[in-house]
C-alpha cells in the first residue's frame, strides 16, 4: 500500500495537482492575512468567493473577455468586503455576524442572483466558452526542464498571480507606507488614530484588498478550476483559508506554506481515494485532520520555542558566570 502511495506521490502530476489545489486557498488565505493584519477578522471569505466567482463568469460571458471577468470578480469582491466593512466598522455590526451574512448571500443568494441575471438555475456550464476562461501559461525555459517543467509550468495565469501575490503582499505590508499603517492599525488602532491616521479608512483599504484577493480566488474557481459556476462551488475553501492564515501566523510566507500543506494533504487524499479498501468518507476527512494536526503541532512548537529561548538565555547567563 505504501509503495502504491509513493509511486503516486513521486509523479509530476502530483506536484502539479498540489499547486492547483493550493492556488484558490492561497488567494483567500492572503486575503485573510491582509484583513487580520489590520485587525479585522474576515470570516466572509467563503461568501465573497462564491459571489465573485459567479460575477466573474457573468462579466466574462457578457463581454467574452476573460480578463474583464477577472476584473469584475475583483470589483465584486471589493464591494462585498466593503459592505462588511461599512457594517462592521462603521455601524458596529458584530464582524463575525457580518461575515456570516455575506456567507448566507454566497450560499443561497447566488442561486437567486444567477436566476435574476441569466434565467439560469444552478450552474453556468452552458455559458462557458474558451475565451471566458483564464488562459494557461507555459513558462518558456522552465517548461522544457524535466520534472520541474511539468510541475510548475502550464498552470493558469491566476496560479502564478497567486504565488507572486505572496511576495507582493509581503512588500505591501512591510515595505510600503500603507502597509505600515495597516500594521499599526491592527496592533494599536488608538495609536494610529492619535497621529491622524484614519483607522476606518485603513481598515476599509485592508478589507478592500482582502476582497480583491478573495475575488481572484473566486475567479480562479469558476473561470479556471471548474470552468463554470455552480451552487456551492467554493465548497469550504474560504474557511480552510482562515485555517491557513492561522497556521501561517498571519505572515504571507508562512501562510503560503500552510496552504501548500493543505494542498498536499488534499492531493494525497485524492490519490488514496482510488486505492483499495479506503472509505471515501474517511479519505475526504484527511485534509481537515491534517490541518488540525498541523495547527496543533505548530502551536506546540511555538510553546516549546518560547521555553527554549528562555532556557538559552539562562544557559548563556550561566556560562557567563
Amino acid at each position, binding site marked *: 500500500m505504501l509503495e502504491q502511495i509513493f509511486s503516486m506521490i513521486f509523479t509530476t502530476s502530483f506536484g502539479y495537482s498540489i499547486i492547483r489545489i493550493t492556488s484558490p486557498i492561497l488567494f483567500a488565505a492572503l486575503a485573510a492575512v491582509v484583513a487580520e493584519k489590520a485587525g479585522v477578522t474576515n470570516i466572509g471569505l467563503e461568501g465573497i468567493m462564491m459571489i465573485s466567482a459567479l460575477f466573474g463568469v457573468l462579466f466574462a460571458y457578457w463581454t467574452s473577455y476573460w480578463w474583464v471577468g477577472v476584473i469584475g470578480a475583483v470589483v465584486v469582491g471589493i464591494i462585498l468586503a466593503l459592505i462588511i466593512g461599512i457594517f462592521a466598522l462603521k455601524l458596529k455590526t458584530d464582524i463575525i455576524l457580518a461575515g456570516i451574512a455575506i456567507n448566507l448571500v454566497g450560499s443561497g443568494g447566488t442561486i437567486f442572483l444567477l436566476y435574476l441575471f441569466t434565467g439560469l438555475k444552478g450552474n453556468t456550464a452552458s455559458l462557458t466558452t474558451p475565451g471566458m476562461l483564464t488562459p494557461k501559461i507555459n513558462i518558456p525555459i522552465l517548461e522544457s526542464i524535466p520534472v520541474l517543467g511539468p510541475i510548475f509550468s502550464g498552470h493558469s495565469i491566476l496560479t502564478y498571480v497567486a504565488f507572486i501575490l505572496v511576495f507582493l503582499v509581503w512588500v505591501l505590508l512591510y*515595505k*510600503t*507606507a*500603507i*502597509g*505600515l*499603517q495597516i*500594521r*499599526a492599525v491592527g*496592533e*494599536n488602532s*488608538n*495609536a*494610529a*488614530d*492619535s*497621529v*491622524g*491616521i*484614519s483607522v476606518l479608512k485603513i481598515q476599509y483599504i485592508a478589507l478592500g484588498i482582502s476582497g480583491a484577493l478573495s475575488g481572484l480566488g473566486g475567479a480562479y474557481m469558476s473561470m479556471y478550476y471548474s470552468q463554470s459556476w455552480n451552487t456551492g462551488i467554493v465548497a469550504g475553501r474560504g474557511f480552510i483559508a482562515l485555517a491557513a492564515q492561522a497556521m501561517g501566523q498571519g505572515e504571507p510566507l508562512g501562510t503560503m506554506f500552510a496552504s501548500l500543506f493543505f494542498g498536499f494533504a488534499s492531493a494525497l487524499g485524492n490519490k488514496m481515494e482510488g486505492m483499495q479498501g479506503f472509505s471515501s468518507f474517511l479519505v475526504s476527512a484527511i485534509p481537515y485532520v491534517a490541518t488540525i494536526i498541523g495547527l496543533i503541532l505548530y502551536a506546540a512548537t511555538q510553546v516549546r520555542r*518560547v521555553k527554549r*529561548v*528562555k532556557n*538559552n*538565555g*539562562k544557559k*548563556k*547567563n550561566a556560562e557567563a558566570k
Partner: protein
Amino acid sequence: MADNEYVVQMKGITKVYPNGIAANQGVDFNVKRGEIHALMGENGAGKSTLMKMLFGLEQPTEGEIYVNGEKVSLTSPTVAISKGIGMVHQHFMLVPNLTVAENMVLGMEPKHKGMFMDYKKAVEITEEYAKKYNLHVDPNAKVRDIPVGMKQKVEILKALVRGAKILILDEPTAVLTTQETEELFKELIHLKEQGYTMIFISHKLHEIKQITDRLTIMRSGKSMGVYQTADISKEEISRLMVGRDVILTVEKDQAQPTDVVLRVRDLEYTNEWNKKMLNKLSFDVRKGEILGIAGVEGNGQRELVDMLFNLNTPDSGTATVNGQSVIGQPQRKIRDLGVSLIPEDRMTFGMAGTATIEENLMSDRSADNKYNNGPLFNMKKMHEDSDQLIKDYKVLCKSRNQQVGMLSGGNIQKVVVAREFSADPILIIADQPTRGIDVGATEFIRKKLVELSRAGAAVLLVSADLNEVMELSDSLIIMYNGGIAAYFEDTTSLTDAVMGEYMLGLKQQSDEEVRRVQHGE
C-alpha cells in the same frame, strides 16, 4: 473676534458621552501664547475629555473652539494636527512591534516612488528631531523593547515632528522617575523658550508649581477658575479641586514589626531578551510593617511582584508566606495564604471593565461558602457586602450594578483596593497603588494602607513616587539592576538626594548592610 493673546479658546464646551455622562458642562478654557498652562482636577473631573476634544478625538456636544483666533471644527486628529496641535497621551499611543522611527513617521511616512516607505529617511528625520530638541532616542529599536522614559520622549517627538506648536501633555510624568521628570521639565522649558505653548495635566502639585505659568482647575465637569500659578498655594489648589481641605501627609505611629511573613531568598530571573531582571534578591517583610521598594522603573520591581503572584516564574530562588512557598503556585492558593495584590496595571489585571462593580468586588471570593448556597450564589449576601464595601471605600457610583469601566480612574482604583483590603490579608503587595489618582483618592488609599499594617498586616509597597515610599514606608529597599542597592531600617531622616544616588547606581551598600533586611535565619 480674534483675540491674539490666546492661541486656544474653548467656549462653553459641553460634552455628553453616549452613556449619559456629562463630562464637561459649559467649560471655558483659554491658553495664552507661549505659556505652560496646567489643567488640574480630580479623577473624572473632565480634563482628558476636554483635551480629547481639542485634539479632535471627541466632538463637543455644545460649544466653540478657536485656535489662533480662528473658529475651528476639529473633526479628527488630522485637522487638529494641521492646526498645529499635538497631544502626548498618558497611556502611550505607540505601536509596540514597530521601531521608534516607524512610530515617529506613522501617518506621514517619507516615500520614494510614491508608495514605498523610505525607512532610511524616517531614521534621518528621527535623528534630526532628536538632536534638535535634545530628546535622545534610538530610532532602530522596537518600541516594545525601550524603557518608558524613552517612550515618553518618542511621544513628544511625534508631536513635534508633525509641526505641533501647541502641545497637550496628559499626565506625562506619571510613569517617569524623578530624574527623568527633571530632564523632561528642562526640555519643556527649552520648548517654551522656543515659543511653544503647552497644556500640562498632572496630579502632582509640586510639578505644577515648578513649571507652569497659569492653571485652570476643574471639578465635576466644570471650570473652577483660572489662576496664576505663583499666586496660589498647594493647599488652595487641593481645596479647589476636591472642594475641601486635604491633608497631604499621612499620620502614622511607630511600627511594631513582629514575625516574618514574606521571606524572599535568592530570587533570580532572566527575561526573554536575555536581560537579568532579578539578581539573587533576598529580603523579608514582617507583620506590622510597611516595607517600601523604591528604584528607577525597570530595575526588577515589576518582575519581583510578578514572581510573588505567579504571573511569571523565576529561574531559581524561593519566596514563602508564613513558610509556604508561593513560587509557581496557582493564584488561588496564593490568595488562600492571605496575600492581596494591588496590581500596577489596574486596567489589565485589576478589573473587568464591562462587569458591574459588584462583580468586580467579588472576583476573588466568588467561590467562598459565604457567598454560595450549594450551587447557587447567595445574592443577598453579595449585595449586602458589596454595598458595604462601596460605602466603606467611598466609591462614587450610582449603584453596585454600574459598570466599573464607566467610573473614573480613582474610583476604579478604590474598587480594586476595597476588594483587596477586605480579603483579610496577612500580606498586602501594593504596586503603584496611587499612580495617576487624584489627591482625594490617594489620601484615602494611603490611610487605609497604614491602618491595615498597624492592624497587623505585612505590607510590601512598590512605588515610583518617592514621596509616597518615603512617607509610608517604615523601612525601605532601593532596587538597582535586579538587586538591593540599599536598605534603610528607618526612613524618617532619609532625603531625595541620598536615595537618588543609590537609585542611579552611584552608590551601593555593603553586603552586610544589605543583609540586615533578612531578619532572623
